[in-house]
């Protein structure tokens, strides 16, 4: 296990009740600046894993390190170095404008008034959010998702967790967001991105490395080429890879 990894998960398990193992002994490492995709069906445990990584759920056993910080023992420093973006349109104050929402959260990320003003303008420009003074409830789904990304970038956190970000977006908006994630967040800003999705083509287009998740277990992880090699089929499509690893017997 690499100590300098951005995300390090050691023997992580979570059960909500007896005989309901949602996360089953996961070991995983994500390098700094890597775009890592977690693929799985609905109910595989992707969101639970992301919430465990963000310390919004406590594990039953195991340890998680983000940028070297233990997420439970060093919770405050961990929180300063992560950002979470969910595909859920909730999580903002719908009666406030986009800008008011951002200013509110900027304060809680300990940004001064001056810093937050500069940062919010910069992020709105970067993410093409053109009507900052509209109420949040009046934005399109695409803009709401961009605001969600903007919020996660407020404190310039090096590690970003994106949970089914393009869910519910039209194809053009989804593509635009994928380009932004790959080109701007990862290549330009050198962020580590942990992206969960059930869209195989999205994973193929984005990921440096993919992990497949089924019933709380990681069934395989690696680059597309590594996964093809393990299968012994260099011409395997992403669907073939998915079928192979998701249906593989333990």
């Amino acid at each position, binding site marked *: 296990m690499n100590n300098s990894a951005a995300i390090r998960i050691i023997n992580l398990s979570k059960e909500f009740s007896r005989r309901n193992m949602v996360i089953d002994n996961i070991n995983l490492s994500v390098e700094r600046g890597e775009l890592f995709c977690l693929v799985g069906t609905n109910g595989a445990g992707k969101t639970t894993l992301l919430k465990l990584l963000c310390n919004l759920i406590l594990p039953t056993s195991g340890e998680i390190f983000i940028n070297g910080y233990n997420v439970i023992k060093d919770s405050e420093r961990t929180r300063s170095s992560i950002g*979470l973006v969910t595909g859920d349109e909730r999580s903002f104050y719908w009666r406030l404008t986009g800008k008011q929402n951002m200013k509110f959260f900027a304060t809680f990320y300990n940004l001064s008034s001056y810093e937050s003003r500069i940062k919010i303008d910069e992020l709105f420009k970067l993410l093409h959010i053109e009507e900052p003074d509209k109420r949040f409830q009046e934005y399109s789904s695409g803009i709401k998702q961009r605001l969600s990304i903007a919020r996660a970038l407020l404190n310039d956190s090096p590690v970003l967790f994106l949970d089914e970000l393009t869910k519910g977006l039209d194809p053009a908006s989804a593509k635009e967001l994928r380009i932004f994630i790959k080109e701007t967040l990862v290549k330009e800003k050198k962020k580590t991105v942990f992206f969960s999705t059930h869209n195989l083509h999205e994973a193929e287009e984005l990921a440096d490395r993919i992990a497949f998740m089924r019933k709380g277990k990681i069934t395989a992880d690696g680059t597309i080429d590594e996964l093809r090699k393990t299968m012994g089929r260099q011409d395997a499509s992403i669907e073939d890879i998915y079928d192979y690893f998701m249906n593989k017997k333990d």
Partner: protein
Amino acid sequence: MFFRKMLTFIKRDFLIAISYRLTFILNWGGMVTTTLTFYFISKMFGKVMNPYMAKYGTDYFPFAIIGIAFSTYLFTAINSLSNNLRTEQMTGTLEMLLLTPTRVSELIIGMSLWDFVFSSTRVFGYILIGVLFLGLDINNISIIASLVVLVFTIISFSGLGIIAASIIMLFKKGAPFSWFVSTFASLFGGTYFPIEVLPEPLRYISYLLPITYSLRSLRYTILKGYSIGDIKGDLFILIIYSLILVPISILIFKMALRRAKVKGSLAHY
């Protein structure tokens, strides 16, 4: 940064409150009708009630208006944090706030601050309507003593509110606890009538409630101008309640938060 965060909470809630203009206006309208109701009750039954009012040196209307105005703080303390916490759970913003490098205690204080500010304007409104239009006499008021009592009133009541919020965090519904405390406070705390009216055994319940000491000393300091020295007994009890309830309630809240994280139910509602 603490004060900036608190001001940010107040600003957020103010902006949300004024975005619902009708509710905002109706809140004030309700205050006028409540004041008038007790004014006319006092006119009708004033003389009958006067023997009980003797120790406060006043008639029923000033007694009732102080009780109603300041018990607003109790109802705010009991309901504010739990209601706001539930709203944050429902809007999904609670998890986002918990992701920021902000202390739990800052969130607890900040989430209810606007409601206390709004309650203060209501208290001021009640008194103002009484003084300007209904002959309420507060010329004797001891401002410092009243403010000191008020501070410990809010702190001790808040402890109960944090416990109510912990129940919301765990069970998603906290109405029975809030209802129980609010009803007990109204019935036994001396809001609408002096506790001397109650049969003696029931009066022991009154003595267990912080609101009893809070309202009694506020009536003395506002209507009779008593100093801190004159109400030191009641003040001491309020301080004891504050010292016991606040740390215990914060501990209970932290335990509830941890339990919600174990159950994975932070955003459930």
